[in-house]
């Protein structure tokens, strides 16, 4: 397949070099922030919102909205890459590092399932949530995270395709085994590295 050339096809858009190198293979630059959600958009008020860490842990943890906002808050500049081929470069989110949330939890497993209000799930190795690579965020570009983008709070794991960053996140379940989440069961790759173009099961 690699030698194939599409008759008469030429590139129409050429992003500046400094942006082009931040674009993973097969992705194009999207200035906006498209919304892609399976099912209706849940409505979660902050007075009922909570975030839990449970499963195979030494100590379960849970935070209310107010308790969560007492934790160290970080602004995270990042690029995000959606498996539907668009990338948004140079955006930012604000929230709490998963490293901070895991302090004192004592996880007994190497895998995690993010679970959301509304029933969405997505799995990943625990190592991808630690080391300053994942956050639970409540702000986008300095404003409260809009509901359609997962507000009041979503996960942010920018080094993986964006379906690995659960919207309306309710918690993390630590597991001693890997297990596919919602999109991972429905055809998308189990890990989802955009730089390796791990879009679908067979990639």
């Amino acid at each position: 397949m690699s030698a194939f050339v599409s008759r008469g096809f030429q590139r129409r858009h050429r992003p500046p070099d400094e942006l082009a190198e931040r674009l993973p293979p097969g992705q194009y630059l999207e200035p906006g922030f498209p919304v892609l959600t399976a099912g209706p958009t849940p409505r979660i008020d902050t007075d009922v919102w909570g975030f839990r860490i449970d499963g195979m842990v030494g100590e379960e943890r849970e935070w209310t909205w107010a308790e969560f906002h007492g934790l160290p808050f970080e602004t995270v500049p990042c690029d995000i890459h959606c498996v539907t081929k668009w990338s948004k470069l140079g955006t930012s989110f604000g929230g709490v590092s998963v490293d901070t949330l895991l302090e004192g939890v004592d996880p007994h497993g190497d895998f995690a399932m993010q679970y959301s209000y509304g029933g969405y799930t997505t799995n990943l190795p625990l190592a991808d949530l630690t080391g300053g690579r994942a956050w639970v965020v409540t702000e986008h570009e300095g404003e409260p995270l809009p509901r359609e983008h997962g507000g009041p709070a979503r996960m942010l794991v920018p080094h993986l395709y964006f379906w690995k960053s659960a919207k309306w996140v309710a918690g993390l379940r630590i597991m001693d085994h890997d297990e596919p989440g919602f999109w991972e069961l429905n055809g998308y790759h189990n890990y989802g590295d955009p730089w390796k173009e791990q879009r679908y099961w067979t990639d």
Partner: protein
Amino acid sequence: MKSFLIELPMWMPHLPGQHYDVRLTAPDGYRAQRSYSIASSPLDEGRIELTIDLLDEGEVSPYFHEVVVEGDQVEVRGPFTSYFVWRGESPVLLLGGGSGVVPLMAMLRHRRRTMPELEMKLIYSVRTADDVIYAEELGDDAVLTFTREPPEGWGGHTGRIDSSLVHAPASNSAVAFACGTNGFVETASRLLLEAGYAPGSIRTERFGPSG
């Protein structure tokens, strides 16, 4: 909108609602990829129909609209993903906005050929008569609404979809599929929830920019 019939050397039956990825390669090796919903029934063995909306700022859809001629080869991969798919559940309500009707058309066409008595209704929102895709195929199982300009003498629904079009589910097994822009799908989901559909019975696909 243009529809393309693509003959596949290695064909696999798809589920109505699934998509293919199309990949274009330029002589210098540059590649552009997009996903397009399948419009045809899986009973059409050996080929698929992709209906592609022209987005002027895009890279793949202008190629299909302006360059591709009959007999050209394109690279495709699929069929993909198994959430926004119809597996024969009934009754079924389909809500399509603009080009969001494409995957729903695969469901409607497949139902007509396999289980014509099964209850499936399409509510299809378009701006004007010129925007109606598959016009000659829309029968008693489709209800149109024109949001901008209805055709002359139109006696049916006009304006955005509303509660007069979305009725309570006829049974506990009812499912609904909504596809279109994010705004359309948000409205459709709200109407379905208000009509009594359970959140888990509503499957949505939001068409992002797909140039």
